[in-house]
């Protein structure tokens, strides 16, 4: 069995990244389980095992009816609903131990490669004495393939062991629904060891100035990217007007945040946000691999750059060669004119 850690958003819906992980678990079950030693029994630590190859979900905290419906359409046979006072505030060790307690002896445990997914899977791996593979994109009889170097290369590896513990790279797999199941819901109210609560979140400060909020960027359908080519802190006027016309978000390169022109929360790339807009318009960005790592999920890529030879132009679907201020100024004017 494959146990998937599922994250939900504020409205109780299954996060898109978790839907990807559930789809991956379901469609790659045999490849994942093939890695295990021959004839290993598929038993669970706490509860009787359903047939091998099944996908089970773990949800910590409130479980909405909507989420149950979505998990059913994603082919989940059983939902482990963890709700207890000890798990209310996030503590990686406490949550990980709760996962370990329901993980199969042999099988797979996975999460999407979000910060929590990464952290929890590593704790699960250490606590079960297994290896862990981060940012997996595929599984087959030869092992796992995972992203390294921010996506510029793939590592092939074999984890060995009895439990395949891994996180799935964002967008490695499209969420796909299947014949709905009637998931069995098991509620657990674990008590955590005091030691596992040492790293509990003591408080959460919801940002009021939005300076640290990346949700607009990661959810936007259109993102306008701005790089060093913008020229200065005061050069964002045209870019921001275009963002507004598109009802989108601004994303920037690390040079821009490094120079202090814009906050880090707007950075796109390996050490910034990974985005999945319908369109990404990269203005004055050269296309370093660490930046490209963040925009692989963009459906259409448009480059505006003075340098026709730049990687960004070469990788784009559409490009305009020219000064970004002039080009975007004209684009904004055109949009205003067409709107009438």
């Amino acid at each position: 069995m494959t146990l998937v850690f599922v994250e939900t958003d504020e409205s109780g819906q299954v996060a898109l990244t978790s839907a990807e992980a559930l789809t991956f678990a379901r469609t790659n079950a045999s490849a994942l389980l093939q890695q295990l030693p021959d004839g290993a029994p598929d038993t669970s630590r706490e509860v009787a095992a359903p047939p091998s190859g099944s996908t089970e979900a773990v949800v910590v905290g409130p479980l909405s009816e909507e989420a149950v419906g979505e998990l059913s359409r994603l082919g989940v046979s059983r939902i482990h609903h963890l709700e207890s006072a000890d798990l209310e505030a996030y503590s990686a060790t406490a949550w990980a131990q709760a996962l370990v307690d329901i993980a199969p002896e042999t099988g797979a445990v996975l999460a999407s490669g979000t910060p929590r997914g990464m952290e929890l899977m590593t704790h699960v791996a250490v606590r079960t004495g297994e290896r862990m593979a981060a940012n997996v994109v595929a599984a087959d009889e030869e092992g796992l393939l995972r992203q390294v170097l921010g996506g510029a290369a793939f590592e092939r590896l074999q984890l060995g062991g009895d439990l395949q513990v891994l996180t799935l790279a964002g967008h490695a797999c499209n969420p796909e629904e299947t014949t709905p199941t009637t998931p069995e819901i098991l509620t657990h109210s674990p008590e955590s060891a005091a030691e596992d609560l040492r790293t509990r979140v003591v408080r959460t400060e919801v940002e009021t100035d939005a300076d640290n909020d990346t949700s607009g960027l990661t959810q936007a359908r259109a993102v306008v990217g701005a790089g060093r080519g913008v020229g200065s802190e005061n050069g964002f006027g045209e870019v921001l007007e275009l963002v507004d016309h598109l009802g989108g978000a601004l994303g920037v390169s690390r040079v821009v945040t490094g120079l202090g022109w814009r906050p880090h929360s707007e950075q796109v790339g390996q050490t910034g946000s990974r985005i999945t807009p319908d369109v990404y318009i990269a203005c004055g960005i050269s296309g370093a691999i660490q930046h490209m790592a963040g925009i692989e999920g963009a459906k259409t890529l448009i480059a505006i750059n003075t340098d026709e030879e730049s990687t960004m132009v070469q990788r784009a679907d559409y490009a305009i060669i020219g000064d970004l201020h002039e080009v975007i100024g004209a684009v904004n004017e055109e949009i205003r004119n067409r709107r009438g």
Partner: protein
Amino acid sequence: MDILVCIKRIPDISGQITLDASGTDIDDSGLGHTTSAHEECAVELAIQTAAATGGKVTVLTLGPAEAVEQLRAAVGVGANDGILIETEDPGAFGPEDIAQVIGDVIRDRAEGGQSFDLVLLGNDAADTGDFQVPIRLAYDLEYPVLTGIQTLSATSGSGGPGAIEAHGIGPAGTEIFSLELPAVIAVQEGGVDPRYPSITGRMKAKKARIAEYAAPEPGAGNPRIGLELPPDTANEVTILGEGPEAAGALVDVLEEIGVIRS
């Protein structure tokens, strides 16, 4: 507060990469080397925290002899000294091994009278991106561990090494943690701006005291079988034009995608 920061020498890549003859690593012969962005922030946080509490910063790396460059660079921006755990074949070490070897050196230092109150690492290394060494090290040392931390503030403890408040970005906002020391913390870019070396820093770096250890044979080893490069998908870019005259063509594309607000 005495702080240890673990940094890793990595190739400085921005463009096309190629594989070496073994097919298990990238060919870094023509490349410069650096450390990960997260680790630069970890070094900066360590320098700030040590300054605020009157302590010292030691940087450590497990890597080839050349990795001394990265240790010296960290001394150049304000770390006090370095530890090189030398190996000719860093690629043979998996995350379990790296954590184990670092843990052993930390224990060795403690026996010698140098104990670290706080161990900082990067959240994930920019090359291998295993997301594991900090957590595995924490289990090895039996210290609590946090990941994804952007800023720190030391709070005075009673008697012992004290406590620390750490801030990171969670799904609902900034998450605040409070830990008794000693602890392991994995740092994420975004909370502090790494400083540049000063002239005196550069001088200091040249004379930096670097303690050397020989790395033992890796125990668990690296599960890597090989590396693959993404297929070179010949991409056909459509040039819409040059300069402002191309604006109309771009707006056509945006209308077609349907992202212009009415």
